[in-house]
């Protein structure tokens, strides 16, 4: 019953709410200090950030069931009539030890309209998505999530299985159910087997903190055209999983390159399927 713990703990492992057996944990007390103004300075160099409704949306469960695996979806809602495009989206988890979770760079010609991943959440927190547009302006939207313990939650519930998948990359293609293939939008998913150690998890044997070790660079191309790139931090969950909607350009293959903080390079290449799931 630990699972519940985690909830308040992050699932025991990562944060908060992880339940574990039968025990359970309630939520951590929200922190009243608002780190956002400082983050605007540190991450965005104090640039002006406007309200982003109608530009970018963020979706997360209000209460994270497993703080080590909190699904988050970023959706671009910029009107097609707007002649600007979204160049990048930065995902910030305000109360996490390293708040900048990821910066996604959107390929110029790939019409990425949605990005989903899974993050660790260490405390009750605001989560901000900041979109940078092609005219250089920044727009933000935010949501609030109740979770805790996600960053310090113990690594790998099943250490042997985790080791076996280190470095594996899986690629899946789906049709975009809501839009259908008519407008050409497809969904695809990259899964990378990697512990993505946060640096806040303790080694079982040595009792020392496991050094942070995570995927910090991911690039996805269709043939030689960039679809999406991610700079990732420790807040991305174990076995990083990126799902995205884009418009295929007729390329024959999708290529993925990922690097971790120790410089390992993971690569994969797959033929583009005409029909997804």
């Amino acid at each position, binding site marked *: *019953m*630990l*699972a*519940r*713990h*985690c*909830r*308040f*703990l992050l*699932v*025991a*492992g990562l944060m*908060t*709410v*992880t*339940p*574990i*057996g*039968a*025990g*359970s*944990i*309630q939520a*951590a*007390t929200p922190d009243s200090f608002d780190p956002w103004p400082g983050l605007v300075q540190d991450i965005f160099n104090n640039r002006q950030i406007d309200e982003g409704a109608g530009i970018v949306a963020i979706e997360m*469960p209000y209460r994270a*069931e*497993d703080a080590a*695996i909190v*699904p988050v*979806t970023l959706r671009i809602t910029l009107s097609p009539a707007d002649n600007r495009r979204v160049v990048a989206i930065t995902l910030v988890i305000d109360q996490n030890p390293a708040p900048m979770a990821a910066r996604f760079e959107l390929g110029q010609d790939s019409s990425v309209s949605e990005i*989903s991943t*899974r993050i660790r959440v260490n405390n009750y927190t605001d989560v901000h998505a900041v979109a940078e547009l092609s005219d250089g302006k920044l727009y933000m939207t935010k949501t609030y999530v109740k979770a805790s*313990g996600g960053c310090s*939650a*113990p690594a790998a*519930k*099943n250490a*042997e*299985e985790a080791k076996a*998948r280190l470095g594996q990359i*899986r690629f*899946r293609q*789906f*049709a975009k*159910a809501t839009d259908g293939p008519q407008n050409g939008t497809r*969904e695809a998913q990259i*899964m990378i087997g990697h512990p993505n150690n946060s640096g806040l*998890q*303790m*080694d*079982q*044997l040595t*009792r020392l903190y496991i050094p942070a070790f995570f995927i910090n660079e991911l690039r996805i191309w269709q043939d030689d055209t960039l679809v999406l790139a991610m700079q990732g931090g420790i807040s991305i*969950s174990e*076995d990083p*999983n990126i*799902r995205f909607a884009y418009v295929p350009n007729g390329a024959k293959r999708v290529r993925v390159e990922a690097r971790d903080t120790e410089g390992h390079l993971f690569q994969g290449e797959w033929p583009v399927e005409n029909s*997804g*799931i």
Partner: protein
Amino acid sequence: MQLWMTLQMITRPLILAGLLLSSGLSFAHAQQDALPTSEVAPGVFVHAGATELMTKENEGAIANVGFVIGSNAVAVIDTGGSAREGERLLAAIRERTDKPIRYVINTHAHPDHVFGNAAFDENGTRFVGHKNLPQALAVRGAFYIDAFRRIMGGDLIDKVRIVEPTLLVDGTLTLDLGQRNLILRAWPVAHSDSDLTVLDEQTGTLFGGDLVFLAHVPVVDGSIRGWLKVIDELAALPAQQVVPGHGPVSNWPAALLDERRYLEKLAADIRALVAQGKPIRSAADTAAFSERSRWKLFDDYNARNATAAFSEIEWE
């Protein structure tokens, strides 16, 4: 068992009074407000945990904990979810016997099963666990203490100490309590990564730990696939009754039916979602929902089980 328990309830106060008067057992322990236990088989005692989350009010006493008395010694199986529950369990043992407590067996690393360990940590008592238990406690112990202090308060948690096992089980191990053998078995990753079962051969009573849930929705903190993989082998253990980690003492192996059905349904629903290309967030509100009315605490754990199971099954 019903008759046995009824007799037990009638006779226990008399026995207790007699013991206190005749054997000079410590009044301090008696005053410790002994945890109520019932004798589910001769020499096998169980405190039934509340089917709840750990709270200040229930003092963390949500898991089933127990002890077995042999002719020379006592073994404790799990110690409860707070320092206080451990102390009350010790008091309950001392109401029954003054034989030495030679073993404290932890069925896995979760706080509701190990937080009472400190009450038993003295010379002559060996702590026993799965070969992975030291690592699981090292990784999670401090995290659990910190988390539950916030929930339950310092009075119940400040005295909790993580006590590591010094006798480790890899495969099986037999403990001799004097004309009474306990057969311990370490399992591969299932409910957690350190699951251990304890079989009292003499009475056919199995302490299943959290490999066995009844009434309380099963909690997956290890591997749903691993759990389903061991369930047949678990069912083959030669027991007549089981003390589950949570839920009522029940006939064996029929006690596994509900849990198996839930786990199979959860895995099947998740496999279908993965096959349809559904995202992970879809699992939390749909997977295994047909099981919702059959379990207590379903809303507290199912979504988490589903999220964890999805991130496991999507790699198949």
